[in-house]
């Protein structure tokens, strides 16, 4: 931390003089000119960013857990083979180039030669081999899926890694970020029990910040890693991570400037709107493109009444998605049309049955009549228990909306709200539910995030966040199987477009909205959100403004 850098006030004043000088010089292009010096000048170095993470961080082992607090905290220490731009195109990182063979069965990565881990040992292809074959395929929650076709990783030299695949796996290139597939140093993990490594909580990686200390319940501290492979980066001296359980306090602390950054539901949607109006804070919904999150109503299609397609469609028609977004999610969302998020432009199509229509309630009533659910003397067709996904107040409000809305259709709804463990068990192990709200990430490729909800092979009792509706059909299974191994991008897209048409028609799920999470940060900092993973990027580009 001995790098010369001018004090914060001095620099600000200089910048201020410079920009005002230029602005008066050329009035017509003033706004353009004001921006230019900031980009051209050497980025300011120094500064401590305090990041609020919610809920509290249990471990820093991102190679073993993808839970949001673990990733938000631990990703600082690790680098990945690739990075991605906002349109989800891969960019070099630890790998400076890569090549997929024509048959799609070999992927060759050329690695950077100037990378060292925090302990000073060099990064080589052996770390990639060990990382993928042992760590990610062995103990990572999603690794066995992302790398399922990888039969071996060859290391012809220290800076070349060749992935040999059983079948083409076009989605694998989307799973190589530092968040999704962190590269750990082989020499510190080999021969030890991966699941009980001390480096779970004292991470050593090749990322921009090195772990310094963790005072449980208080803070986690990461300092700049001076030998980071991107020269001159990171710009910040330090990142400190904190957890505060109370959401009102979190908002107050951000307002006060005691903390500078939070995302992924760190502040309630209602507060995010208000904080965005303050001059020293910015609220953005950028930086979640790689999550492709959807919120929906999920039907248990094994049992009546939802074994009947018409009943499922009726509920899908009855939901006024725009109203839900505006009033329950405070505008932080976009109407969802089907199983694939519109972020995934390559695969997405809106050319499916449209459930968001003005006469939705009428259509729904007609469908319920056709399904044989007549109203009784008191106007009730049937009764229903609606489970609410226990991840926050929005879903409780959403449940109340569903109850009132379905009441108009003559469906009498009882709401049930349980804690996370109980709800997960009910939905994914006991299968003891009729209809539940739910929200899942779709990630950067349908194979990683979408198949699990609709493919028959994912009807697995006891595994969470898989095909909970129990629905499947031979044709949709076939489409997903083909799309998973189709190397040609256009053909893949065609397969997914047919899949979306079929699924939306069958409506095992009523898709409601594409979530837009607010990230709040203090304007003392610039370039905070620079990629599709937002606060789950390494944050090596963040600097003092």
């Amino acid at each position: 931390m001995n790098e010369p850098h001018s004090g914060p006030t001095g620099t600000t004043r200089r910048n201020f003089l410079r920009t005002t000088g230029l602005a008066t010089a050329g009035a017509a292009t003033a706004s353009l000119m004001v921006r230019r010096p900031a980009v051209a000048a050497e980025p300011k170095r120094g500064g401590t960013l305090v990041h609020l993470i919610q809920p509290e961080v249990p471990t820093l082992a991102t190679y073993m857990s993808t839970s949001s607090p673990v990733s938000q905290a631990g990703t600082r220490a690790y680098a990945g083979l690739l990075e991605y731009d906002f349109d989800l195109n891969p960019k070099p990182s630890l790998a400076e180039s890569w090549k997929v063979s024509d048959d799609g069965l070999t992927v060759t990565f050329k690695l950077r030669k100037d990378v060292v881990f925090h302990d000073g040992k060099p990064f080589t292809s052996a770390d990639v081999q060990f990382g993928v074959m042992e760590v990610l395929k062995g103990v990572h929650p999603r690794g066995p899926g992302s790398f399922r076709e990888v039969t071996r990783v060859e290391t012809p030299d220290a800076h070349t890694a060749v992935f040999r695949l059983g079948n083409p796996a076009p989605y694998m290139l989307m799973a190589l970020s530092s968040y999704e597939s962190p590269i750990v140093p082989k020499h510190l993990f080999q021969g030890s029990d991966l699941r009980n490594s001390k480096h779970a909580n004292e991470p050593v990686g090749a990322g921009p910040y090195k772990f310094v200390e963790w005072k449980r319940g208080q803070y986690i501290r990461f300092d700049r890693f001076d030998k980071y492979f991107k020269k001159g980066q990171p710009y910040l001296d330090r990142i400190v991570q904190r957890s505060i359980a109370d959401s009102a306090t979190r908002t107050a602390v951000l307002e006060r400037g005691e903390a500078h950054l939070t995302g992924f539901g760190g502040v309630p949607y209602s507060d995010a709107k208000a904080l965005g109006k303050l001059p020293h804070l910015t609220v953005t919904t950028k930086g979640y493109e790689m999550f492709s999150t959807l919120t929906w109503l999920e039907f248990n299609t094994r049992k009546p009444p939802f074994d009947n397609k018409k009943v499922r469609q009726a509920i899908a028609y009855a939901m006024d998605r725009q109203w839900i977004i505006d009033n329950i999610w405070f505008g932080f969302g976009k109407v969802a049309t089907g199983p694939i998020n519109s972020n995934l432009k390559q695969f997405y199509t809106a050319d499916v049955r449209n459930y968001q229509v003005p006469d939705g309630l009428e259509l729904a009533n007609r469908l319920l009549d056709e399904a044989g659910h007549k109203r009784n003397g008191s106007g009730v067709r049937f009764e229903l228990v609606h489970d609410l996904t226990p991840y926050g107040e929005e879903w409780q409000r959403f449940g109340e909306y569903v109850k009132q809305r379905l009441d108009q259709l003559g469906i009498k709804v009882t709401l049930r709200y349980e804690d996370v463990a109980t709800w997960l068990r009910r939905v994914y192990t006991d299968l003891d539910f009729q209809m539940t709200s739910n929200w899942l990430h779709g990630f950067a490729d349908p194979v990683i995030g979408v198949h699990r909800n609709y493919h028959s092979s994912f009807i697995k009792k006891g595994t969470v966040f898989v095909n909970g509706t129990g629905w499947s059909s031979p044709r949709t299974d076939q489409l997903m199987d083909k799309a998973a191994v189709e190397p040609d991008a256009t053909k893949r897209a065609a397969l997914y477009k047919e899949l979306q048409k079929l699924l939306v028609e069958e409506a095992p799920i009523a898709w409601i909205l594409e979530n837009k999470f607010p990230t709040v940060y203090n304007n003392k900092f610039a370039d905070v959100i620079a990629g599709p993973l937002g606060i789950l990027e390494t944050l090596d580009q963040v600097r003092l403004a």
Partner: protein
Amino acid sequence: MGIARTRLRYVARRLAQAVPILLGIAVMNFLLLQLAPGDAATVLAGEAGSATPEYMAMLRQRFGLDQPLSLQLLYYVKQVLVLDLGFSFRHNMSVLALILERLGPTLLLMGTTLVLSVGFGMLLGVAAARRVGSWRDSLISILAIVSYATPLFWVGLMLIVVFSLELDWLPATGMESVAMFYEGWERIVDVARHLVLPAVTLSLFYMALYTRLMRAAVLEQSGLDYVTTARAKGLTDRRITVRHVVRNAVLPVVTMAGIQTGNLLGGSVVVESVFGWPGLGLLAFQSLFARDFNLLLGIFFVSACLVVLVNLLVDLSYTFLDPRIEAR
């Protein structure tokens, strides 16, 4: 036999009696927790947002959840007997280390709260009782009822709004200024500044309790014969109150404080979450929702030990406060 020796024997006997009690508590805790549906593996996988069946089976095997319940219990009792609190898989850390890290802040907050609330509670109680029915008495009683009835989280948030956001006198959350890394004396001042708001919030609530208790006890004592005797001896009101009445009236307050200490040691989830204080309460609360039973059982066990200890201290303190009471 000397008094000191009697006391020592008494302590030894009480401690010996505590062993089967603690063991019983441990077994009961274990069985009670089994009633909660879902397990740690489900929650971990749930937090990950996705998981493969192999991953979940791996977690269950690692946590020992694939063993029959009776074996799990047997293993747990064996651990407790050698005072091994086990391992928290969620935190990848030993339970003892996790608890010890939080015990310091908990004790600091709770100690301060205890001193503030008992101290001011007694003062206010005596002040009210000495002028029963006066405006001072009414004011203190109203204050006590209001602070007892106001929800803690609201008091906490309002204190933050006033003293932190508006006046900017005190930090809003945490135990230290995290980005500063103070050392030595500066650090003590820093921690003290952070301690003010949570300690005041928590103290207000308990203080109300002690005020009411003290007021009632002083009133009761004031009507007794020894007070009349003292007055007949010609002692001043002040002297009677300080030397005689308070000493007798304090016994119920000490009893209550002993019981409350047990509560306090468990931490205050509300105050800890509002002020981001790194205490045990929040840790226990989170472990319950995460079904991290090893950690939760550990916290329960440590709390039980402390409660036994505090009760013993309270019983001993009686013998100092009132020489008529003997430790046997």
